[in-house]
């Protein structure tokens, strides 16, 4: 390196050095170490024995992993379309000036600022059969309360509903921002052409929101693939693993059974999945498809 290069590097070091040090030490190194860990049998005390592809082979035939992976897809399929539709509808209804719309916007966003542990506390006592709000309503109607959180076919759905309630704010705001970008004169032209509401929505609003829809679906899919706290705290993944997502499986494998190598292999698979979703939808967002 020439003297000029060395001097400019010395000049830049105090600015980018501190961050880079932490970034490499606490993100890049763990990323590589995690990959290495997945090829080892490892215990929490630092003992590691090389195991080749053993963890991955085990993964392929582990029914518990298969179930957790299936559950994770179910969460994504249940939450993402419903959440996208609800938040788009809310944004369309609330894209208005004035106090009323503003109050509604603030209200629908408010749940997003709460932490997952507050959300689960609130929803546990909406859903439990012995003290829940829904149980009280059911009883008032003269019916037996439903044990939403402990019934195999309802537990996953219950966690999904709480998740939707929690996640409504951000996509709604993204859609509102997207709607603000559409020039008003297109709508004026449509009104002059006597286009009805449905036609206007289908021909103007929806195509203009294409990028926002892709963004919302991408963010939410990536978020639901990483669903963790809601399931851990509301159902503990049960009953019989019926609502256990992959991240909860990673957590249990690493921190209750202390199989760090195996847990790392699961984490790698999830990482690839999330990366694939991101890339897929990045492509969908950038390619222009003509109608």
């Amino acid at each position, binding site marked *: 390196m020439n003297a000029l290069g060395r001097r400019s590097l010395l000049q830049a070091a105090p600015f980018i050095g501190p961050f880079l040090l932490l970034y490499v030490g606490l993100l890049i190194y763990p990323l590589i170490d995690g990959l290495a860990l997945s090829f080892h049998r490892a215990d929490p005390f630092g003992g590691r024995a090389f195991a080749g592809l053993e963890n991955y082979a085990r993964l392929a035939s582990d029914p518990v992993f298969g179930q957790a992976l299936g559950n994770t897809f179910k969460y994504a399929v249940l939450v993402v379309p419903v959440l996208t539709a609800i938040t788009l509808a809310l944004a369309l209804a609330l894209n208005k000036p004035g106090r009323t719309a503003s109050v509604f916007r603030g209200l629908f966003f408010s749940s997003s600022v709460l932490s997952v*542990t507050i959300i689960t506390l609130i929803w546990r006592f909406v859903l439990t059969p012995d003290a829940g709000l829904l149980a009280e309503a059911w009883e008032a109607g003269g019916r037996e309360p439903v044990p939403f959180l402990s019934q195999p076919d309802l537990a996953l759905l219950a966690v999904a509903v709480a998740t939707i309630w929690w996640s409504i704010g*951000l996509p709604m705001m993204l859609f509102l921002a997207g709607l603000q970008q559409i020039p008003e004169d297109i709508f004026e032209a449509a009104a002059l052409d006597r286009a009805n509401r449905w036609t206007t929505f289908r021909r103007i609003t929806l195509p203009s929101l294409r990028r926002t829809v892709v963004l919302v679906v991408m963010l939410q899919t990536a978020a639901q693939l990483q669903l963790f706290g809601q399931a851990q705290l509301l159902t503990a993944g049960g009953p019989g693993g019926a609502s256990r997502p992959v991240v909860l499986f990673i957590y249990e494998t690493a921190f209750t059974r202390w199989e760090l190598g195996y847990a790392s292999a699961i984490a790698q698979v999830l990482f690839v999945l999330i990366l694939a979703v991101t890339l897929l939808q990045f492509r969908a967002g950038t390619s222009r498809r003509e109608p």
Partner: protein
Amino acid sequence: MKGLADRHRLTPLALAGLSLAALVMVAPLLWTVALSLKSNAELMRDSGTAFSAPYTLENYRAILQGSQVFSWLLNSLIVSLGTTLGVLALCSLAGYGFARLEFPGRRALFVLVLLGLAVPEQAVILPRHQLFADLGLHNSYPGLILPGLAAPFGVFFMAQYFRGIPRELDEAALLDGASRWTLFWKVLLPLTWPAQATLGVFTFLASWNDYWWPLISATRSDRFTLTVGLASSQMNYAQTSGLGYLMAQAVFAALPILIVYALFQKQIVGAMAGAAAR
């Protein structure tokens, strides 16, 4: 032109639908508050009593008269403020460096930082846990703060902002004999205040609500953050002193952030939407 005027007003049908949706949003919150205002003994008999008086503040009194909830609140505050200040300092420096300085390897390093945006927490959390165990950092404030400082989003965000500031400012300051450091500190940094506010609010909120990392790093109850403390309260619910008390903890934990939200609604919404749409 009826259709046009319509678009700026809430129709009765839309208003009815929105009110119903708002009720679904608010009912669980109101139920939580109602439960927190009932005596534990009464809830033990029948939780349906939460719909009617008498209400009491005894659960809140119990929290104020020395419970661990306070120390959890303090821990959360220290960790979130520490993370926020650290991120603002590190990312302003690095953002400026990448946006304005020329040095060998700049492009490659910036790409390396950008790649970090695609790394989910799950991919690094296990080896990070081992690393922090080796360094003896678990159950400490640095142990809870440091991982938040390694996130690449802020660098990308600040670099973008610095790039938007006209270079003429730099040239004028350098002509006046200012050093690189004075230029950064006295001329450019004050101009980035809006970006600092957005990044700060976003970082604080993310840190305040973080659950995964404090759950595995802070295992001693006096080191719990509010999120982990509340998680342990609800998991040990059978042994704790009652439903009303538990729900009072939820309300107590939710209040600070809801107050912050009420005060800074515009900034918070803007910060979260801005971070998502990066």
